[in-house]
Protein backbone atom coordinates (compact mmCIF):
# COMPACT_ATOMS: atom_id res chain seq x y z
CA UNK A 1 0.00 0.00 0.00
CA UNK A 2 1.23 3.47 -0.79
CA UNK A 3 2.45 5.78 1.91
CA UNK A 4 -0.38 8.33 1.45
CA UNK A 5 -2.85 5.46 1.71
CA UNK A 6 -1.40 4.37 5.03
CA UNK A 7 -1.33 7.94 6.31
CA UNK A 8 -4.99 8.42 5.40
CA UNK A 9 -5.89 5.30 7.32
CA UNK A 10 -3.95 6.49 10.34
CA UNK A 11 -5.78 9.81 10.28
CA UNK A 12 -9.10 7.95 10.06
CA UNK A 13 -8.19 5.55 12.85
CA UNK A 14 -7.04 8.48 14.97
CA UNK A 15 -10.36 10.19 14.49
CA UNK A 16 -12.32 7.02 15.26
CA UNK A 17 -10.40 6.37 18.48
CA UNK A 18 -10.61 10.00 19.56
CA UNK A 19 -14.35 10.06 18.96
CA UNK A 20 -14.77 6.91 21.06
CA UNK A 21 -12.71 8.42 23.88
CA UNK A 22 -14.76 11.59 23.70
CA UNK A 23 -18.02 9.65 23.73
CA UNK A 24 -16.92 7.52 26.63
CA UNK A 25 -16.07 10.53 28.78
CA UNK A 26 -18.65 13.05 27.66
CA UNK A 27 -21.02 12.36 30.57
CA UNK A 28 -18.33 11.87 33.20
CA UNK A 29 -17.55 15.23 34.79
CA UNK A 30 -14.26 14.08 36.29
CA UNK A 31 -12.71 13.16 32.97
CA UNK A 32 -12.71 16.57 31.33
CA UNK A 33 -9.01 16.44 30.52
CA UNK A 34 -9.41 13.19 28.58
CA UNK A 35 -12.41 14.68 26.82
CA UNK A 36 -10.50 17.80 25.89
CA UNK A 37 -7.53 15.88 24.55
CA UNK A 38 -9.77 13.48 22.65
CA UNK A 39 -11.78 16.31 21.15
CA UNK A 40 -8.67 18.18 20.03
CA UNK A 41 -7.12 15.01 18.64
CA UNK A 42 -10.28 14.20 16.68
CA UNK A 43 -10.37 17.71 15.23
CA UNK A 44 -6.71 17.50 14.33
CA UNK A 45 -7.22 14.16 12.59
CA UNK A 46 -10.00 15.50 10.37
CA UNK A 47 -8.17 18.66 9.41
CA UNK A 48 -4.86 16.82 9.03
CA UNK A 49 -6.36 14.00 6.99
CA UNK A 50 -8.07 16.38 4.60
CA UNK A 51 -5.03 18.62 4.39
CA UNK A 52 -2.76 15.75 3.45
CA UNK A 53 -5.22 14.34 0.96
CA UNK A 54 -4.65 15.00 -2.73
CA UNK A 55 -8.36 15.01 -3.37
CA UNK A 56 -10.09 16.11 -0.18
CA UNK A 57 -13.50 16.62 -1.78
CA UNK A 58 -13.39 13.14 -3.25
CA UNK A 59 -12.22 11.72 0.05
CA UNK A 60 -15.28 13.18 1.73
CA UNK A 61 -17.55 11.96 -1.06
CA UNK A 62 -18.73 15.42 -2.00
CA UNK A 63 -20.52 14.67 -5.21
CA UNK A 64 -24.06 13.99 -6.27
CA UNK A 65 -25.38 10.51 -5.63
CA UNK A 66 -27.65 8.72 -8.06
CA UNK A 67 -31.27 9.69 -7.75
CA UNK A 68 -32.23 6.11 -7.00
CA UNK A 69 -29.85 5.90 -4.07
CA UNK A 70 -30.90 9.32 -2.82
CA UNK A 71 -34.60 8.47 -2.81
CA UNK A 72 -34.06 4.93 -1.60
CA UNK A 73 -31.87 5.91 1.33
CA UNK A 74 -34.17 8.78 2.32
CA UNK A 75 -37.09 6.35 2.43
CA UNK A 76 -34.94 3.87 4.35
CA UNK A 77 -34.02 6.49 6.95
CA UNK A 78 -37.64 7.56 7.24
CA UNK A 79 -38.88 4.00 7.71
CA UNK A 80 -36.23 3.40 10.33
CA UNK A 81 -37.48 6.45 12.22
CA UNK A 82 -41.08 5.23 12.01
CA UNK A 83 -40.03 1.86 13.41
CA UNK A 84 -38.01 3.57 16.16
CA UNK A 85 -41.00 5.68 17.18
CA UNK A 86 -43.26 2.66 17.11
CA UNK A 87 -40.85 0.71 19.33
CA UNK A 88 -40.95 3.57 21.82
CA UNK A 89 -44.72 3.68 21.85
CA UNK A 90 -44.92 7.11 20.23
CA UNK A 91 -46.96 8.26 17.27
CA UNK A 92 -45.52 6.97 14.03
CA UNK A 93 -44.83 10.47 12.72
CA UNK A 94 -44.06 13.68 14.58
CA UNK A 95 -47.05 15.98 14.85
CA UNK A 96 -44.97 19.12 14.76
CA UNK A 97 -41.31 19.91 14.42
CA UNK A 98 -39.69 21.81 17.26
CA UNK A 99 -36.45 23.74 17.50
CA UNK A 100 -34.50 20.57 18.04
CA UNK A 101 -35.16 19.52 14.45
CA UNK A 102 -32.41 21.94 13.35
CA UNK A 103 -29.57 20.60 15.49
CA UNK A 104 -30.81 17.11 14.63
CA UNK A 105 -30.25 17.86 10.95
CA UNK A 106 -26.80 19.24 11.69
CA UNK A 107 -25.72 16.31 13.82
CA UNK A 108 -26.90 13.74 11.25
CA UNK A 109 -25.10 15.59 8.51
CA UNK A 110 -21.90 15.88 10.54
CA UNK A 111 -21.85 12.24 11.57
CA UNK A 112 -22.23 11.06 8.00
CA UNK A 113 -19.61 13.47 6.77
CA UNK A 114 -17.26 12.16 9.46
CA UNK A 115 -17.86 8.43 9.15
CA UNK A 116 -19.22 7.73 5.67
CA UNK A 117 -17.24 10.65 4.31
CA UNK A 118 -13.92 11.00 6.06
CA UNK A 119 -13.39 7.59 7.66
CA UNK A 120 -14.77 5.46 4.83
CA UNK A 121 -13.09 7.64 2.22
CA UNK A 122 -9.77 7.29 3.98
CA UNK A 123 -10.06 3.52 4.17
CA UNK A 124 -11.12 2.96 0.60
CA UNK A 125 -7.72 1.54 -0.33
CA UNK A 126 -8.59 -1.49 1.78
CA UNK A 127 -11.40 -2.26 -0.61
CA UNK A 128 -14.93 -0.96 -0.85
CA UNK A 129 -16.55 -3.50 1.43
CA UNK A 130 -13.84 -3.39 4.07
CA UNK A 131 -13.98 0.40 4.15
CA UNK A 132 -17.75 0.27 4.43
CA UNK A 133 -17.68 -2.23 7.28
CA UNK A 134 -14.85 -0.57 9.17
CA UNK A 135 -16.48 2.85 8.94
CA UNK A 136 -19.73 1.35 10.19
CA UNK A 137 -17.85 -0.30 13.05
CA UNK A 138 -16.17 2.99 13.91
CA UNK A 139 -19.53 4.75 13.95
CA UNK A 140 -21.18 2.01 16.00
CA UNK A 141 -18.21 2.12 18.37
CA UNK A 142 -18.57 5.86 18.84
CA UNK A 143 -22.31 5.58 19.48
CA UNK A 144 -21.81 2.75 21.92
CA UNK A 145 -19.17 4.73 23.79
CA UNK A 146 -21.40 7.79 23.86
CA UNK A 147 -24.17 5.78 25.51
CA UNK A 148 -21.99 3.44 27.54
CA UNK A 149 -21.67 5.65 30.60
CA UNK A 150 -24.91 7.63 30.71
CA UNK A 151 -25.82 10.03 33.49
CA UNK A 152 -27.32 8.45 36.56
CA UNK A 153 -30.85 7.30 36.09
CA UNK A 154 -30.70 6.72 32.36
CA UNK A 155 -31.04 3.16 31.19
CA UNK A 156 -29.58 2.27 27.83
CA UNK A 157 -29.62 -1.06 26.03
CA UNK A 158 -26.27 -1.10 24.36
CA UNK A 159 -26.61 -4.34 22.41
CA UNK A 160 -29.48 -3.29 20.13
CA UNK A 161 -28.02 0.19 19.93
CA UNK A 162 -24.70 -1.13 18.68
CA UNK A 163 -26.39 -3.62 16.36
CA UNK A 164 -28.73 -1.12 14.80
CA UNK A 165 -26.03 1.50 14.36
CA UNK A 166 -23.79 -1.10 12.77
CA UNK A 167 -26.47 -2.43 10.46
CA UNK A 168 -27.62 1.07 9.50
CA UNK A 169 -24.01 2.13 9.01
CA UNK A 170 -23.37 -0.76 6.65
CA UNK A 171 -26.38 0.19 4.54
CA UNK A 172 -25.30 3.84 4.50
CA UNK A 173 -21.77 2.76 3.72
CA UNK A 174 -22.93 0.66 0.81
CA UNK A 175 -24.47 3.74 -0.74
CA UNK A 176 -21.18 5.60 -0.31
CA UNK A 177 -19.28 2.71 -1.84
CA UNK A 178 -21.58 2.27 -4.81
CA UNK A 179 -22.13 5.93 -5.62
CA UNK A 180 -18.89 7.42 -4.35
CA UNK A 181 -21.10 10.05 -2.75
CA UNK A 182 -21.93 10.71 0.87
CA UNK A 183 -25.17 12.48 -0.09
CA UNK A 184 -27.54 9.46 0.11
CA UNK A 185 -26.22 8.57 3.58
CA UNK A 186 -26.60 12.16 4.73
CA UNK A 187 -30.15 12.27 3.41
CA UNK A 188 -31.03 9.03 5.18
CA UNK A 189 -29.49 10.07 8.47
CA UNK A 190 -31.11 13.49 8.37
CA UNK A 191 -34.49 11.93 7.56
CA UNK A 192 -34.10 9.59 10.52
CA UNK A 193 -33.04 12.29 12.96
CA UNK A 194 -35.75 14.74 11.97
CA UNK A 195 -38.54 12.18 12.06
CA UNK A 196 -37.31 10.45 15.20
CA UNK A 197 -36.33 13.45 17.30
CA UNK A 198 -37.71 16.54 15.55
CA UNK A 199 -40.73 16.84 17.84
CA UNK A 200 -38.86 16.56 21.13
CA UNK A 201 -39.40 19.52 23.41
CA UNK A 202 -35.77 19.36 24.51
CA UNK A 203 -32.56 17.87 23.29
CA UNK A 204 -32.09 14.27 24.39
CA UNK A 205 -29.60 13.80 27.18
CA UNK A 206 -26.88 12.49 24.90
CA UNK A 207 -26.95 15.66 22.83
Amino acid at each position, binding site marked *: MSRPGRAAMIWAAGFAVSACAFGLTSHRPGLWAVRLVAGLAGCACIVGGLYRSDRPARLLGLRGGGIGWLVGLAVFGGLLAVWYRFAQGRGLLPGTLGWFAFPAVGIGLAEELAYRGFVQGSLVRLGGVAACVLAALAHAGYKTCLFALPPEGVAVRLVPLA*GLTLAGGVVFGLSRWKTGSVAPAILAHVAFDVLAYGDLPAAPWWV
Partner: protein
Amino acid sequence: MTSRASLLCCLVLGGLLCGAGLAAGPDEPVHLRVPTKGSCVLQGYLSLGSMSPFSTIRYMQAGKDGRPDYSLAVFPGDLVYVVVPDEPGELRTDLFFPMVFDGQLDPKQLRAEGGRVTLNGRRIFLDLMTPEDIAATMKLPESELADLRAVRINADEPGLVGALQRLAGAGVVVSGGGVLKDKPQLLDALVAIRPVGLIAQGLPGWEKLVARLPKLRYLAVPAASLQPIVGLAELRQLDVIFQEPTDETLELLKGSTKLRSLTLMNVSPANLKGIERFGGLRRFALSNAPELADVSFLRQLPQLRTLVLGNCEKLTDIGPVGTCGELRQLAVLSNKLDQIESYQPIAKCQQLELLLLNQNVIKDRSAEVEQLRMDLPETQITGFCLGSAWMLLVLPLAMVGLLLGRRRVRRAA
Protein backbone atom coordinates in the same frame (compact mmCIF):
# COMPACT_ATOMS: atom_id res chain seq x y z
CA MET B 1 -11.43 -13.16 4.47
CA THR B 2 -12.98 -11.99 1.25
CA SER B 3 -14.91 -8.79 0.99
CA ARG B 4 -18.23 -10.53 0.50
CA ALA B 5 -17.63 -12.83 3.43
CA SER B 6 -16.77 -9.92 5.71
CA LEU B 7 -19.88 -8.07 4.59
CA LEU B 8 -21.99 -11.15 5.22
CA CYS B 9 -20.44 -11.62 8.66
CA CYS B 10 -21.15 -8.03 9.53
CA LEU B 11 -24.76 -8.23 8.43
CA VAL B 12 -25.29 -11.48 10.30
CA LEU B 13 -23.72 -10.00 13.42
CA GLY B 14 -25.83 -6.86 13.12
CA GLY B 15 -28.93 -8.97 12.57
CA LEU B 16 -28.22 -11.09 15.62
CA LEU B 17 -27.63 -8.03 17.78
CA CYS B 18 -30.81 -6.39 16.54
CA GLY B 19 -32.73 -9.61 17.04
CA ALA B 20 -31.47 -9.94 20.60
CA GLY B 21 -32.47 -6.39 21.34
CA LEU B 22 -35.90 -6.75 19.81
CA ALA B 23 -36.52 -10.04 21.54
CA ALA B 24 -35.68 -8.46 24.89
CA GLY B 25 -37.52 -5.26 24.02
CA PRO B 26 -41.18 -5.53 24.93
CA ASP B 27 -40.56 -7.56 28.06
CA GLU B 28 -37.93 -5.33 29.53
CA PRO B 29 -39.45 -2.06 30.72
CA VAL B 30 -36.20 -0.19 30.46
CA HIS B 31 -37.87 3.16 30.19
CA LEU B 32 -39.79 2.54 33.36
CA ARG B 33 -36.76 2.03 35.50
CA VAL B 34 -36.02 4.80 37.93
CA PRO B 35 -32.76 4.54 39.77
CA THR B 36 -32.83 3.92 43.47
CA LYS B 37 -29.99 6.35 43.82
CA GLY B 38 -28.94 9.61 42.34
CA SER B 39 -32.29 11.33 42.35
CA CYS B 40 -32.04 14.95 41.69
CA VAL B 41 -34.12 17.98 42.21
CA LEU B 42 -35.56 20.60 40.02
CA GLN B 43 -37.38 23.78 40.55
CA GLY B 44 -39.82 24.78 37.91
CA TYR B 45 -39.97 21.65 35.85
CA LEU B 46 -42.75 23.17 33.84
CA SER B 47 -40.90 26.37 33.14
CA LEU B 48 -37.35 25.19 32.78
CA GLY B 49 -37.94 23.81 29.33
CA SER B 50 -35.07 21.44 29.09
CA MET B 51 -35.06 18.46 31.35
CA SER B 52 -32.41 16.37 29.74
CA PRO B 53 -30.05 16.38 32.72
CA PHE B 54 -32.84 15.51 35.10
CA SER B 55 -33.52 11.87 34.75
CA THR B 56 -35.00 11.62 38.17
CA ILE B 57 -36.81 14.47 39.74
CA ARG B 58 -38.15 14.80 43.17
CA TYR B 59 -39.17 18.05 44.66
CA MET B 60 -42.12 19.79 46.19
CA GLN B 61 -42.72 23.46 45.81
CA ALA B 62 -44.90 25.23 48.32
CA GLY B 63 -47.69 27.45 47.04
CA LYS B 64 -49.03 30.56 48.67
CA ASP B 65 -51.75 28.73 50.52
CA GLY B 66 -49.39 26.09 51.86
CA ARG B 67 -50.53 23.51 49.34
CA PRO B 68 -48.03 22.33 46.77
CA ASP B 69 -47.82 24.26 43.55
CA TYR B 70 -46.71 20.99 42.17
CA SER B 71 -44.88 18.01 43.43
CA LEU B 72 -42.94 15.31 41.78
CA ALA B 73 -42.48 12.03 43.50
CA VAL B 74 -40.35 9.34 41.99
CA PHE B 75 -40.77 5.85 43.23
CA PRO B 76 -37.81 3.62 42.60
CA GLY B 77 -38.59 1.08 39.93
CA ASP B 78 -41.92 2.68 39.33
CA LEU B 79 -43.32 5.85 38.03
CA VAL B 80 -43.30 9.54 38.49
CA TYR B 81 -46.29 11.04 40.13
CA VAL B 82 -46.87 14.66 39.34
CA VAL B 83 -49.27 17.12 40.84
CA VAL B 84 -49.65 20.30 38.87
CA PRO B 85 -52.06 23.16 39.29
CA ASP B 86 -54.72 23.27 36.65
CA GLU B 87 -56.58 26.33 37.79
CA PRO B 88 -55.74 28.55 40.73
CA GLY B 89 -56.96 26.77 43.82
CA GLU B 90 -57.40 23.47 42.07
CA LEU B 91 -55.00 20.65 41.64
CA ARG B 92 -54.87 18.22 38.80
CA THR B 93 -53.02 14.99 39.19
CA ASP B 94 -51.11 13.35 36.44
CA LEU B 95 -48.82 10.47 36.03
CA PHE B 96 -45.70 10.77 34.00
CA PHE B 97 -42.99 8.30 33.43
CA PRO B 98 -39.25 8.44 33.80
CA MET B 99 -38.82 8.07 30.09
CA VAL B 100 -40.28 11.53 29.78
CA PHE B 101 -37.42 12.86 31.80
CA ASP B 102 -34.87 10.92 29.82
CA GLY B 103 -35.49 13.52 27.20
CA GLN B 104 -36.57 10.87 24.79
CA LEU B 105 -40.29 11.43 24.83
CA ASP B 106 -42.51 14.42 24.71
CA PRO B 107 -44.87 14.41 27.70
CA LYS B 108 -47.58 15.53 25.31
CA GLN B 109 -47.15 12.33 23.38
CA LEU B 110 -47.74 10.10 26.39
CA ARG B 111 -50.19 7.32 25.61
CA ALA B 112 -53.08 7.47 28.02
CA GLU B 113 -56.49 6.59 26.66
CA GLY B 114 -59.07 7.16 29.29
CA GLY B 115 -57.81 5.47 32.40
CA ARG B 116 -55.65 3.07 30.43
CA VAL B 117 -52.01 4.05 30.61
CA THR B 118 -49.79 1.65 28.82
CA LEU B 119 -46.15 1.20 28.16
CA ASN B 120 -44.89 -1.30 25.65
CA GLY B 121 -48.49 -2.43 25.35
CA ARG B 122 -48.78 -3.32 29.02
CA ARG B 123 -51.08 -1.64 31.44
CA ILE B 124 -49.13 -0.20 34.32
CA PHE B 125 -51.62 2.19 35.82
CA LEU B 126 -55.22 1.75 36.78
CA ASP B 127 -57.74 4.47 37.44
CA LEU B 128 -60.54 3.58 39.83
CA MET B 129 -62.07 7.00 40.08
CA THR B 130 -65.51 6.60 38.55
CA PRO B 131 -68.20 3.91 38.36
CA GLU B 132 -67.22 3.42 34.72
CA ASP B 133 -63.58 2.80 35.67
CA ILE B 134 -64.65 0.29 38.26
CA ALA B 135 -67.03 -1.50 35.92
CA ALA B 136 -64.32 -1.70 33.27
CA THR B 137 -61.83 -3.04 35.79
CA MET B 138 -64.19 -5.82 36.80
CA LYS B 139 -64.19 -7.01 33.20
CA LEU B 140 -60.45 -6.88 32.68
CA PRO B 141 -58.65 -10.17 32.18
CA GLU B 142 -56.05 -11.14 34.75
CA SER B 143 -53.25 -10.54 32.26
CA GLU B 144 -54.17 -6.84 32.14
CA LEU B 145 -53.56 -6.55 35.87
CA ALA B 146 -50.30 -8.46 36.01
CA ASP B 147 -47.91 -5.53 35.50
CA LEU B 148 -49.66 -2.80 37.43
CA ARG B 149 -47.41 -0.33 39.18
CA ALA B 150 -49.88 2.22 40.46
CA VAL B 151 -53.56 2.57 41.23
CA ARG B 152 -55.49 5.75 41.68
CA ILE B 153 -58.62 5.40 43.72
CA ASN B 154 -61.68 7.41 44.64
CA ALA B 155 -62.42 6.25 48.13
CA ASP B 156 -65.96 7.61 47.88
CA GLU B 157 -66.97 5.25 45.08
CA PRO B 158 -69.27 2.55 46.43
CA GLY B 159 -68.08 -0.16 44.05
CA LEU B 160 -64.40 0.37 44.77
CA VAL B 161 -64.08 -2.51 47.21
CA GLY B 162 -65.02 -5.09 44.58
CA ALA B 163 -62.48 -3.74 42.12
CA LEU B 164 -59.74 -3.62 44.74
CA GLN B 165 -60.38 -7.24 45.63
CA ARG B 166 -59.23 -8.14 42.14
CA LEU B 167 -55.89 -6.50 42.90
CA ALA B 168 -55.13 -8.45 46.06
CA GLY B 169 -51.40 -8.86 46.51
CA ALA B 170 -50.54 -6.56 43.59
CA GLY B 171 -48.01 -4.57 45.63
CA VAL B 172 -48.67 -1.28 43.86
CA VAL B 173 -48.39 2.38 44.76
CA VAL B 174 -51.78 3.73 45.81
CA SER B 175 -52.83 7.30 45.33
CA GLY B 176 -56.08 9.14 44.90
CA GLY B 177 -58.78 10.99 46.74
CA GLY B 178 -61.83 10.52 48.87
CA VAL B 179 -62.37 9.84 52.53
CA LEU B 180 -61.08 6.64 54.10
CA LYS B 181 -62.61 7.19 57.50
CA ASP B 182 -65.27 4.78 58.72
CA LYS B 183 -64.91 2.41 55.77
CA PRO B 184 -63.58 -0.80 57.27
CA GLN B 185 -64.28 -2.89 54.16
CA LEU B 186 -62.42 -0.46 51.97
CA LEU B 187 -59.49 -0.44 54.37
CA ASP B 188 -59.43 -4.23 54.34
CA ALA B 189 -59.39 -4.28 50.55
CA LEU B 190 -56.59 -1.72 50.41
CA VAL B 191 -54.53 -3.63 52.94
CA ALA B 192 -55.03 -6.79 50.90
CA ILE B 193 -53.34 -5.09 47.94
CA ARG B 194 -50.20 -4.91 50.08
CA PRO B 195 -49.24 -1.47 48.81
CA VAL B 196 -45.56 -0.66 48.67
CA GLY B 197 -46.28 3.03 48.56
CA LEU B 198 -49.00 5.47 49.47
CA ILE B 199 -49.51 8.97 48.15
CA ALA B 200 -52.10 10.22 50.55
CA GLN B 201 -52.27 13.91 49.77
CA GLY B 202 -55.97 13.71 48.99
CA LEU B 203 -56.98 10.85 51.26
CA PRO B 204 -58.27 12.06 54.61
CA GLY B 205 -58.20 9.21 57.04
CA TRP B 206 -54.99 7.75 55.61
CA GLU B 207 -53.71 7.33 59.15
CA LYS B 208 -55.81 4.21 59.70
CA LEU B 209 -54.51 2.68 56.51
CA VAL B 210 -50.88 3.41 57.36
CA ALA B 211 -51.38 1.90 60.78
CA ARG B 212 -52.12 -1.42 59.07
CA LEU B 213 -49.25 -1.21 56.61
CA PRO B 214 -46.11 -1.48 58.71
CA LYS B 215 -44.00 -2.46 55.72
CA LEU B 216 -44.65 0.62 53.60
CA ARG B 217 -41.57 1.75 51.74
CA TYR B 218 -42.73 5.03 50.19
CA LEU B 219 -45.07 7.49 51.79
CA ALA B 220 -46.22 10.99 50.92
CA VAL B 221 -48.67 12.53 53.34
CA PRO B 222 -50.14 15.82 54.47
CA ALA B 223 -49.82 15.66 58.21
CA ALA B 224 -50.81 17.59 61.26
CA SER B 225 -48.76 15.18 63.31
CA LEU B 226 -45.97 12.70 62.78
CA GLN B 227 -47.54 10.21 65.15
CA PRO B 228 -49.28 8.09 62.46
CA ILE B 229 -45.94 7.55 60.74
CA VAL B 230 -44.18 6.28 63.82
CA GLY B 231 -43.04 2.67 63.62
CA LEU B 232 -42.68 2.26 59.84
CA ALA B 233 -39.42 0.35 60.02
CA GLU B 234 -39.17 -0.33 56.28
CA LEU B 235 -39.67 3.25 55.19
CA ARG B 236 -37.17 4.36 52.54
CA GLN B 237 -38.75 7.53 51.34
CA LEU B 238 -40.96 9.95 53.20
CA ASP B 239 -42.60 13.19 52.10
CA VAL B 240 -44.43 15.17 54.73
CA ILE B 241 -46.39 18.35 54.17
CA PHE B 242 -47.05 19.83 57.58
CA GLN B 243 -50.55 21.23 57.51
CA GLU B 244 -50.25 23.23 60.69
CA PRO B 245 -47.43 24.26 62.99
CA THR B 246 -46.37 21.55 65.38
CA ASP B 247 -43.61 21.12 67.90
CA GLU B 248 -43.15 17.47 67.08
CA THR B 249 -39.65 16.53 66.17
CA LEU B 250 -38.08 13.97 63.90
CA GLU B 251 -37.10 12.09 67.04
CA LEU B 252 -40.47 10.44 66.70
CA LEU B 253 -39.34 8.65 63.57
CA LYS B 254 -36.27 7.10 65.12
CA GLY B 255 -37.60 3.63 64.29
CA SER B 256 -37.40 4.34 60.54
CA THR B 257 -33.73 3.57 60.39
CA LYS B 258 -33.80 2.69 56.70
CA LEU B 259 -34.94 6.13 55.66
CA ARG B 260 -32.86 7.38 52.78
CA SER B 261 -34.98 10.16 51.37
CA LEU B 262 -36.82 12.81 53.34
CA THR B 263 -38.84 15.73 52.02
CA LEU B 264 -40.39 18.18 54.45
CA MET B 265 -42.64 21.07 53.57
CA ASN B 266 -43.88 23.91 55.80
CA VAL B 267 -41.26 23.25 58.44
CA SER B 268 -40.33 25.00 61.65
CA PRO B 269 -36.81 24.73 63.05
CA ALA B 270 -38.18 22.74 66.00
CA ASN B 271 -39.40 19.99 63.68
CA LEU B 272 -35.86 19.27 62.58
CA LYS B 273 -34.63 18.34 66.02
CA GLY B 274 -33.38 14.79 65.92
CA ILE B 275 -32.52 14.78 62.25
CA GLU B 276 -29.02 13.66 63.19
CA ARG B 277 -30.54 10.22 63.80
CA PHE B 278 -30.87 9.86 60.05
CA GLY B 279 -27.21 9.97 59.23
CA GLY B 280 -27.82 7.59 56.34
CA LEU B 281 -30.01 10.04 54.44
CA ARG B 282 -29.07 10.38 50.80
CA ARG B 283 -31.70 12.95 49.86
CA PHE B 284 -33.07 15.75 51.94
CA ALA B 285 -35.42 18.41 50.67
CA LEU B 286 -36.70 21.31 52.70
CA SER B 287 -39.36 23.52 51.25
CA ASN B 288 -40.95 26.52 52.87
CA ALA B 289 -39.12 26.79 56.15
CA PRO B 290 -39.49 30.55 56.71
CA GLU B 291 -38.08 30.58 60.24
CA LEU B 292 -35.09 28.39 59.55
CA ALA B 293 -31.87 30.35 59.90
CA ASP B 294 -29.41 27.66 60.85
CA VAL B 295 -28.58 24.59 58.80
CA SER B 296 -25.71 23.37 60.95
CA PHE B 297 -27.56 20.07 61.24
CA LEU B 298 -26.17 19.30 57.79
CA ARG B 299 -22.90 18.42 59.51
CA GLN B 300 -24.71 15.35 60.84
CA LEU B 301 -25.74 14.19 57.38
CA PRO B 302 -22.43 13.28 55.78
CA GLN B 303 -23.88 10.90 53.22
CA LEU B 304 -26.21 13.38 51.57
CA ARG B 305 -26.12 13.23 47.80
CA THR B 306 -29.04 15.52 47.12
CA LEU B 307 -30.02 18.59 49.09
CA VAL B 308 -32.78 21.12 48.52
CA LEU B 309 -33.09 24.30 50.51
CA GLY B 310 -36.18 26.02 49.19
CA ASN B 311 -37.88 29.14 50.50
CA CYS B 312 -35.86 29.34 53.69
CA GLU B 313 -36.26 33.09 53.99
CA LYS B 314 -34.18 33.66 57.09
CA LEU B 315 -31.32 31.51 55.95
CA THR B 316 -28.33 33.68 55.24
CA ASP B 317 -25.42 31.39 55.95
CA ILE B 318 -25.13 28.24 53.90
CA GLY B 319 -21.64 27.48 55.24
CA PRO B 320 -22.60 24.04 56.58
CA VAL B 321 -23.46 22.94 53.06
CA GLY B 322 -19.72 22.80 52.51
CA THR B 323 -19.44 19.98 55.03
CA CYS B 324 -21.50 17.65 52.84
CA GLY B 325 -18.55 16.22 50.99
CA GLU B 326 -20.57 13.62 49.11
CA LEU B 327 -23.08 16.08 47.74
CA ARG B 328 -23.83 15.59 44.05
CA GLN B 329 -26.92 17.71 43.59
CA LEU B 330 -27.77 20.90 45.36
CA ALA B 331 -30.60 23.37 45.05
CA VAL B 332 -30.59 26.63 46.94
CA LEU B 333 -33.79 28.29 45.90
CA SER B 334 -34.43 31.49 47.72
CA ASN B 335 -37.12 34.07 47.24
CA LYS B 336 -34.89 37.02 47.91
CA LEU B 337 -31.95 37.91 45.79
CA ASP B 338 -29.54 39.10 48.47
CA GLN B 339 -30.66 36.82 51.22
CA ILE B 340 -27.75 34.39 51.07
CA GLU B 341 -24.58 36.16 52.16
CA SER B 342 -22.27 34.07 50.06
CA TYR B 343 -22.55 31.09 47.78
CA GLN B 344 -18.86 30.37 48.09
CA PRO B 345 -19.23 27.56 50.69
CA ILE B 346 -20.69 25.52 47.86
CA ALA B 347 -17.24 25.45 46.31
CA LYS B 348 -16.17 23.01 49.03
CA CYS B 349 -18.50 20.37 47.59
CA GLN B 350 -15.99 19.09 45.10
CA GLN B 351 -18.17 16.15 44.08
CA LEU B 352 -21.03 18.41 43.09
CA GLU B 353 -22.43 17.61 39.68
CA LEU B 354 -25.47 19.81 39.60
CA LEU B 355 -26.23 23.15 41.20
CA LEU B 356 -29.61 24.76 40.88
CA LEU B 357 -29.98 28.40 41.72
CA ASN B 358 -32.80 30.76 40.97
CA GLN B 359 -32.47 32.36 37.60
CA ASN B 360 -32.26 35.81 39.13
CA VAL B 361 -29.35 34.71 41.28
CA ILE B 362 -27.49 33.40 38.27
CA LYS B 363 -28.15 36.64 36.45
CA ASP B 364 -27.70 39.28 39.14
CA ARG B 365 -24.91 37.68 41.15
CA SER B 366 -23.06 36.61 38.09
CA ALA B 367 -19.62 37.38 39.55
CA GLU B 368 -20.20 34.92 42.37
CA VAL B 369 -21.64 32.34 40.03
CA GLU B 370 -18.68 32.74 37.71
CA GLN B 371 -16.36 32.21 40.65
CA LEU B 372 -18.27 29.03 41.47
CA ARG B 373 -17.86 27.89 37.89
CA MET B 374 -14.13 28.35 38.22
CA ASP B 375 -13.97 26.60 41.56
CA LEU B 376 -16.21 23.76 40.40
CA PRO B 377 -15.43 23.43 36.73
CA GLU B 378 -17.25 20.13 36.43
CA THR B 379 -20.43 21.24 38.13
CA GLN B 380 -23.39 21.86 35.92
CA ILE B 381 -24.89 25.18 36.89
CA THR B 382 -26.95 26.17 33.91
CA GLY B 383 -27.98 22.77 32.61
CA PHE B 384 -25.45 22.70 29.83
CA CYS B 385 -24.27 19.25 28.90
CA LEU B 386 -21.90 18.54 26.07
CA GLY B 387 -22.82 15.37 24.27
CA SER B 388 -23.12 14.25 20.69
CA ALA B 389 -23.68 17.84 19.55
CA TRP B 390 -19.90 18.19 19.52
CA MET B 391 -20.07 16.33 16.23
CA LEU B 392 -21.35 19.55 14.69
CA LEU B 393 -17.74 20.70 14.85
CA VAL B 394 -17.08 18.33 11.97
CA LEU B 395 -18.86 20.68 9.58
CA PRO B 396 -16.55 23.71 9.93
CA LEU B 397 -13.55 21.44 10.38
CA ALA B 398 -14.32 19.63 7.13
CA MET B 399 -14.53 22.98 5.36
CA VAL B 400 -11.22 24.09 6.84
CA GLY B 401 -9.61 20.79 5.91
CA LEU B 402 -11.00 20.98 2.39
CA LEU B 403 -9.73 24.51 1.85
CA LEU B 404 -6.32 23.72 3.27
CA GLY B 405 -6.08 20.51 1.25
CA ARG B 406 -6.97 22.23 -2.00
CA ARG B 407 -4.50 24.99 -1.28
CA ARG B 408 -1.77 22.45 -0.65
CA VAL B 409 -2.58 20.62 -3.89
CA ARG B 410 -2.55 23.88 -5.86
CA ARG B 411 0.80 24.85 -4.39
CA ALA B 412 2.26 21.45 -5.20
CA ALA B 413 0.98 21.73 -8.77
